[in-house]
C-alpha cells in the first residue's frame, strides 16, 4: 500500500521528486522549495492519492549543515481519509529564505505555519496572518533554533499601547468604585464617597483633582501611582 504512493509520485512528477525513502514504514519524499506548493496541490487533487487530511507541518534546525547546505528541514505530513495512506513531504529551506504558504491547499496549515514561524523564524510568503502564535509579539529570538540557549531570559515588556484605552478601566482619580468593601451604614448615613468617588465629589465629600494639579503637587509621584487605582481615602475634602 505504502509503496504505491511513492511510485505514483515518481511516475507523475518525475524529476520534481528529488529523493524518496521509507524508514520504519514512514514514506518520505524530498522536493525543492520552489515545487513545494505544486507538489502539495498535486497530493491533494490527484485521484489516486487524495491526500485531503492535513496532519502536521513542522521544521527541524540543522545549523551545522551551513554553509554547504540549507539550514532547515520543513516537513509536511498528510494522509488520505478515503485511501488511508500517508506521506511525509520534506524540503530544505535556507536561513532567511521564504517558503510559499500551504494555507491555500489545506486550511490547517495556517496555525502550523504560524507556529513554525514563531519557533524557527521561517517566513511563509503569502500567509494571510503570519503572527507569533504561542509566544508574544515582543519575544526576542526564536526558541527552537539550536543556537537559542535554553536558559536565556527575556526582557520585561512594557505595557502595550492600545487604541481607546482611555475608555477602559482602570479609572481616573475621580471615577470608579473603591476597591474596598463598601460600608453600607456609612453609605446610608450619606457618605457617598464610599460607593463612588465621583458621587463623593458631587456631594462635596471629596475634592476633584485634575491632572495639572497632580503634576504641580509635591506628592505628584504618589498621586500618579494612585491615578492607576481607585480613589484616595474618602473624607479627604
Amino acid at each position, binding site marked *: 500500500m505504502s509503496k504505491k504512493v511513492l511510485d505514483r509520485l515518481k511516475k507523475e512528477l518525475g524529476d520534481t521528486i528529488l529523493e524518496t525513502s521509507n*524508514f*520504519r*514504514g*514512514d514514506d518520505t519524499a524530498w522536493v525543492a522549495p520552489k515545487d513545494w506548493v505544486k507538489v502539495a496541490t498535486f497530493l491533494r487533487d490527484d485521484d489516486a492519492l487524495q491526500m*485531503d*487530511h*492535513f*496532519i*502536521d507541518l*513542522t521544521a*527541524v*534546525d540543522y545549523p551545522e549543515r551551513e554553509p554547504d547546505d540549507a539550514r532547515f528541514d520543513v*516537513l509536511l*505530513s498528510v494522509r488520505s*481519509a478515503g485511501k*488511508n495512506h500517508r506521506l*511525509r513531504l520534506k524540503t530544505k529551506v535556507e536561513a532567511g529564505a521564504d517558503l510559499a504558504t500551504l494555507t491555500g491547499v*489545506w*486550511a*490547517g496549515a*495556517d*496555525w*502550523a505555519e504560524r507556529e513554525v514561524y514563531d*519557533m524557527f523564524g521561517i517566513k511563509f510568503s503569502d500567509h494571510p496572518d503570519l503572527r507569533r*502564535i*504561542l*509566544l*508574544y509579539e515582543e519575544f526576542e529570538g526564536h*526558541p*527552537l533554533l539550536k543556537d*537559542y540557549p*535554553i536558559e536565556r531570559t527575556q526582557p520585561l515588556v512594557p505595557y502595550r499601547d492600545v487604541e481607546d484605552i482611555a475608555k477602559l478601566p482602570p479609572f481616573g482619580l475621580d471615577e470608579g468604585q473603591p476597591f474596598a468593601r463598601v460600608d453600607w451604614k456609612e453609605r446610608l448615613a450619606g457618605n457617598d464617597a464610599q460607593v463612588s468617588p465621583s458621587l463623593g465629589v458631587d456631594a462635596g465629600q471629596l475634592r476633584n483633582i485634575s491632572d495639572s494639579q497632580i503634576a504641580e503637587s509635591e506628592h505628584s509621584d504618589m498621586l500618579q501611582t494612585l491615578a492607576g487605582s481607585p480613589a484616595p481615602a474618602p473624607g479627604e475634602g
Partner: protein
Amino acid sequence: MEPTYEAFEDDAALELPSEPMRLNMGPAHPAVHGTIRMVLDLDGETVQNVDVQPGYLHRGFEKSCERGTWAQVFPYTDRLNYCSPMLNNVGFALAVEKLLDIEVPERAQYYRVILGELARITDHMICNGAGAMELGAFTPFLWLLKVRDWVWDVLERETGSRMTHSFGRIGGMAAPPTETFAEDVTDLLEQVEKVTIETEALLLRNRIFVDRMQDVGILSKELALSMGATGPVLRSTGVDYDVRKAHPYMVYDRFDFEVPIGHKGDTYDRFLVRMEEIRQSVSIIRQALEQMPTDGPVNVDDPRIVLPEKREVYNTIEGTIAHFKLVMEGLKPPKGEVYGYTEGANGELGFFIVSDGSGTPYRVRVRPPCWFNLQGVRSMVMGGMLADIIPTFGSINMIGGECDR
C-alpha cells in the same frame, strides 16, 4: 405616554446606530476550562469575527526535551494532556520503540491498552461532565468526577500516582500489574457503565441541554479534514478515522469494537461520540483483561534499553554498568527520524522524533490533537451567538498543557 411605533416612517429609523463591540474573552474566563484568549467582534450577541489566541500555557516542551535523555521526556509527556497522561506516556514510548525497531512483550502491550483506555475514559468523562456543567447541569459533572476519582484510585494503585504517572518506559512499563489489577478494573467498569447511563438519562432528554447543544458549532466534514481535526471532533462530522482501527498499533487489531461517528458535526454529536467511546473503551478493557497473559515480563530483555532490576544493580558488575550507562548517557537509538502516532483522547497524538545517534533527542515534535481541533473553533463559532461559544469550546476539549506545550 408611551411612544408608538407608527410614528416612525420605516423600521430603519428604529435601529440605533451601532458599531461592532470588541470583547475580550479570557485568558482566564470562568466558564471556559483552559487558558485561552478570544478576541471577539460582536454585533449585538452575534459573533462577527473571532481571533483565537492560544499560547498562555506555553512552557517549551519541545525545547526542554532537547536537553535530557530519551527517558527523561516521560515526565514532560505527562503534562501534555494531563487528563489522560497514560496515553501520552504510551504514545511517546511507542514512537521511540518504532525508532529502535523493537516490540514490547505481549503482557506489556495489554497492560498499556488497559491503562490507556482507562485514561481515555477519564478524559471523556471530564470533557462531557465539564461541558454539561458549563450549561448549568452540575449533577452529572459531580457523578462523573466521582467515578473518575475511582478510576484514578486504580491508576494510583498501579502506578503510584493519581495524575502524572510517568509510568511508561521505553521498552515496556515501569512495573508489572499488581495482583488485584484484573479484579479492581472489573469492579470499576461496572461503575463506569452505571454512571454513563445515569448521565445520559439526566441529560439527553433535558430540553435545555439538547437545545443548547444541537445545531451549535457545526463543523463540515471537508473543513474538518482540511483543518487537520482528528479524534471525536473529526468523527462527529462523519469521518470514521480512528488510529486504533485505521492503523492498528499494539494489540488493538485483536479487539472487537466500533468507531462511533456523528453525522452533523455539531456539539451534540461530539458529546454523543464521546459517550459512546466510553462504552467502547469499557468493552475493549473487558476483552483485554480476558486475553491478557497472567504472567511474563513487561519489559523487553535488552540491557541497552531497559534499566536492570535493582537486585542486579547492587549485586552484579554487569547490572551496575548497564544502570550507569543508561542513567548517565541514556539509551542511544539509531540515527534517523520517525513519526509515531497513536489515538489520544482528543485525536491523533503524534510524536515526530529525530535522533542523531546520541543519548539526547535531537528534536521531539509532538503533534497535539487539540491544537488542530482548536483551529476549527473559529469557523464553528463565527456567525453564532456569544453564549454558544461556551458549549462549542467545551466540546473541543482543549487541554492547555497539550495545546500550548
